């Protein structure tokens, strides 16, 4: 498990599963369809991503393909951090 995935899963346990580390969430499980997240939950998740990974989440990034599962988040964060590094 990469550091990004570890951090994302920790956030998931703390904030969407409320500490229930016994509940397993698959990499492609949709947060929306499984009822794990609502509209304010998405905004909280965005705030976490920006702070934790030092990335900027634009409004147009707010789409399920970027944010709706653990694997989608990993791809999104990796993409953002790569872009960010290549710009330096």
């Amino acid at each position, binding site marked *: 498990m990469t550091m990004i995935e570890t951090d994302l899963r920790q956030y998931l346990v*703390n*904030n969407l*599963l*409320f*500490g*229930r580390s016994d509940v397993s969430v698959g990499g492609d499980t949709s947060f*929306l*369809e*499984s*009822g794990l*997240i*609502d*509209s*304010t*939950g*998405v*905004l*909280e998740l*965005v*705030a*976490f991503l*920006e*702070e934790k990974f030092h990335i900027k989440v634009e*409004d*147009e990034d*707010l*789409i*399920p393909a970027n*944010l709706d599962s653990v694997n989608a988040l990993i791809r999104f964060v990796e993409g953002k951090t790569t872009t960010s590094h290549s710009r330096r």
Partner: protein
Amino acid sequence: MQAAEEAGKIYEHTQDESRVECIIDRMMGANSEKTAVIYKGRRWTYGDLRVRVDLQKARLADAGLFEKNRVIVWMENSPEYVAAYLAILELGGIVVALHPQTTAEEVKRIIRHLGAAGLIVSPAMKQWALGDFEPTGLRFLFAGEDLHRMQYHNSGHVVPEGVAQIIYTSGSTGRPKGVVLTHRNLIANTRSILSYLQLTTDDSVMAVLPFVYAYGNSVMLTHLFAGGTLVIENNMLYPHVVLDSMIKAGVTGLSGVSTTYALLLNHSNLKSYAFPALRYLTPAGGPMRLELLSRIRAVFPDRRIFLMYGQTEASARLTFLPPDLLDLKNESAGRAIPGVSLKIVKEGGETAGPDEVGEVWACGDNIMQGYWQDTELTADVLRDGWLRTGDLGRLDTDGYLTIVGRNNEMIKSGAYRISPNEIEEVLLQHPDVQEAGVVGIDDPILGQKICAVVSLRTTGVLTNQDLMAYCAQRLVQYKRPKVITIVPALPKSPSGKILRPRLREIGSLNVPAPVVSEQVANPHLADIEERRWSKLRRVV
């Protein structure tokens, strides 16, 4: 916009059509090639819908659906939902739709409360098992297309004539209330809305509100009555997805609650989009801040904006403010819709004069028959043919209503009305919880968010995260507190009554109030809140 109005046809519905499904069947016959529903990129014509309704009807008849049977539809907005709704009505049954996030426990409770005969579950629902429903007395359960026959228990309830639908809403006692609506109620309300929105066969609406509740239900019925198109998008969490659907489908209408518009304004590049087909917007479903309304008007300066006010008990709608009066009556919820009368009643029961504040009462053919199996509560709100809305307001000399407050503690969060008592009861069932108070606090997106303040029997045994997890297992997502603050004791008056305004202060600040000790809240939660607010500030 104008071309669409000229090309579209406004159907005149005759008074002899006394059942909802008969009116829609006529539209299905007259518009068989026209698109009724767009869902996940697929178009369903009215002809397709007719075929789907017939199929669903055959299945339900085979399963044993009889007149006046209550059938629960536990589904997300979809063409299958519309087909199930119409099939039940065509067989003489009564539709009881439940939000897709409803927990299995709540569904069981409602089955027993209703004496339901059937349950139709969407394949998307994962939070249940067949065993959950075997002892509930259902005759049948459809999981998608799979029929499961069960041991029916006849509840023996006497069902009034003409009932079409029962909509469950959060009750002030904490128990769910089933609002009983007849075909006459729904038809009266739908025709009245059509008379001022002037929907035609060329109209199409972005349907983001759940059909299971009164507002979403009225959006569905008005467009089916008009022969229009429902463009379904269940993904309001991601505003760009909704905007892309709007553009692609060329919708002419957007019906939403304050949260819908706040999300679009705050979290999308709304201004960069063009909506050439958009003709009207209908903000409703709760109070809308003037600041939010002015931002909507700034983005859509030349579109018709109909502010509306209503209640589930009125089949949805009681008043509307015509677009050309937005400036002149800028604090008003509008005048009574056709067929509805309003009056303001003062505390002593006397009818108020112009501009005097009192409780808003309404009467008309759209007013419910009462609450399912609850004569006491029904008698409390229905008086001599009038509905007591529970809202405080005043009527001006022109008959325009201004809502000045709510005389109950109901929380309005997103598209939902939620009883604090219902959440308090769940919290109080936890063995370590001593006291619980729940309030709504202002939120720029949700309107109000749910805040719980709790004291424990023994300090240190529970964290607010434990209580969040506890609520997550027992409450549908939109009823779960967003903030739980643990305090040594709840603020109370000398007579022992919980001081809700103080609870709001505690929740708003999310920091210890004077009565609060070090054990308050998970600081991480406060961090999240602060980060969320800073994000909002940045975007706004």
